């Protein structure tokens, strides 16, 4: 199957939150009781039952106040840090189509994916002892449909299609509005892309990582220390065996005992 990309044209978002509602409906996620926090953002953050969220920010631009609206959800990394960190096979799976999906049946609730994620996406449930996050509606897209959020979006902010098609579209749109594509790290590609307007930085958006990449600590852990655990144990055991064969066991001086007694 082809690889897919969800494109978020941030300039077209009106903050209607149709995507939030559609996500809850399709994935059968319970509503949450929330409180007013002084922002139009509601709920306050992503959660076990809120897989996508419109984040609101107020910034001053050229002396004028501006509202920033950002559809936040799993970025579906091409080389996902969460999957690399996960100890339980099958709990987090990178699919050929692009989405990174979780399976609560196999999740052991260790939370390492939450720590590893460069976008702070997975959310833990104490009651269920596992994690949940956006799946890019893997069940819908493998059936030829668009993700629920994309289907609900009334303004064309969210679009979905094959990788080639969306990359082409993103490049054209970014050029037209003088904006840029985010993330743009060729070493850390994602299956969700933003078209950001010009005149703003990624850092102006709350909870956005301007430089998403595989955490360095995770690289050291999995690429160096992990293999060296076995190399260390095996190597030292090999040296001990060589010592035993070449030098032999270290015997006590029996002569001394005879002399002493």
């Amino acid at each position, binding site marked *: 199957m082809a690889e897919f990309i969800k494109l978020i044209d941030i300039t077209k978002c009106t903050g209607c939150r149709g995507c939030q509602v559609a996500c809850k409906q399709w994935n059968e996620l319970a509503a949450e009781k929330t409180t007013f926090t002084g922002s139009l953002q509601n709920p306050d953050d992503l959660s076990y039952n809120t897989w996508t969220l419109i984040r609101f920010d107020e910034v001053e631009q050229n002396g004028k106040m501006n509202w920033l609206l950002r559809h936040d959800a799993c970025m579906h990394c091409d080389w996902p840090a969460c999957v690399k*960190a996960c100890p339980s096979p099958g709990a987090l799976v990178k699919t050929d189509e692009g989405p990174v999906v979780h399976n609560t049946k196999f999740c052991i609730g260790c939370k390492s994916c939450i720590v590893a994620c460069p976008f702070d996406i997975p959310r833990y449930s104490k009651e269920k002892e596992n994690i949940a996050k956006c799946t890019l509606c893997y069940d819908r897209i493998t059936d030829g449909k668009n993700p629920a959020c994309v289907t609900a979006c009334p303004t064309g902010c969210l679009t979905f299609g094959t990788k080639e098609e969306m990359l082409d579209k993103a490049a054209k749109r970014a050029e037209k509005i003088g904006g840029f594509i985010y993330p743009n790290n060729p070493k850390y590609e994602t299956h969700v892309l933003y078209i950001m307007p010009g005149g703003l930085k990624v850092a102006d958006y709350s909870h956005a990582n301007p430089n998403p990449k595989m955490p360095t600590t995770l690289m050291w852990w999995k690429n160096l220390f992990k293999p060296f655990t076995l190399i260390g144990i095996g190597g030292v055991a090999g040296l001990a065996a060589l010592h035993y064969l070449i030098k032999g066991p270290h015997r006590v001086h029996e002569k001394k005992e005879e002399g002493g007694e």
Partner: protein
Amino acid sequence: MSAQEGMVRVTDPVERIAHWILAVSCLFCVLTGLGLMFHSWSVIPELLGGYYATKWMHIFSGVIFTFSLVYGYFMWKKDCEFEEDDLGWILQGGGYLWQTTKLPPVFKYNAGQKAFFWFLVVFGAILVISGLIMWNPLIFPVMVARFAYMLHAMSVVVLASFIVVHIYLGTIGNPGTVSAMITGLVSKAWCETHCPRWYAERNKKPESV
């Protein structure tokens, strides 16, 4: 209360029990940890009742390891303080690598054993602290949690390798040694070879058993 004829008591029962609680909890942590880190070793979690059960066994075993490590630290630290002669022992390779007659006489533990003790204390402490952070990583800043995962893996590399040396030298590498941690009894000749100064001092005191 005399020991077996011709044998010397080098450990008391409390010391031996503490050693084995520390050893078993440590090895069980290594086993479950390897099962969780290497997906190809799924046979370990499967035999133990699944990945979820293995996670909790790793944590509980880690808690037991923590308490026995603290106990062991206070029990052995006095005998494991380095002294001047230890350098001479290390420079002679402990007599394990080539023939030598220039080994300084050892008191209770030789420099290699002392080094193992301090490696266990330092890297064991890193494992315990990072392990506690990994148990509940979300209450810490993300960079602290990420470092904890990395340091946990790093400490295992060091400690697991040293444990292999410890097991080798405590068993087949030094015939007659392993009984020190089973019955607590070793031969007089063993004492004269491995801890001559301690043995000489012990013989001065008529009360000691």
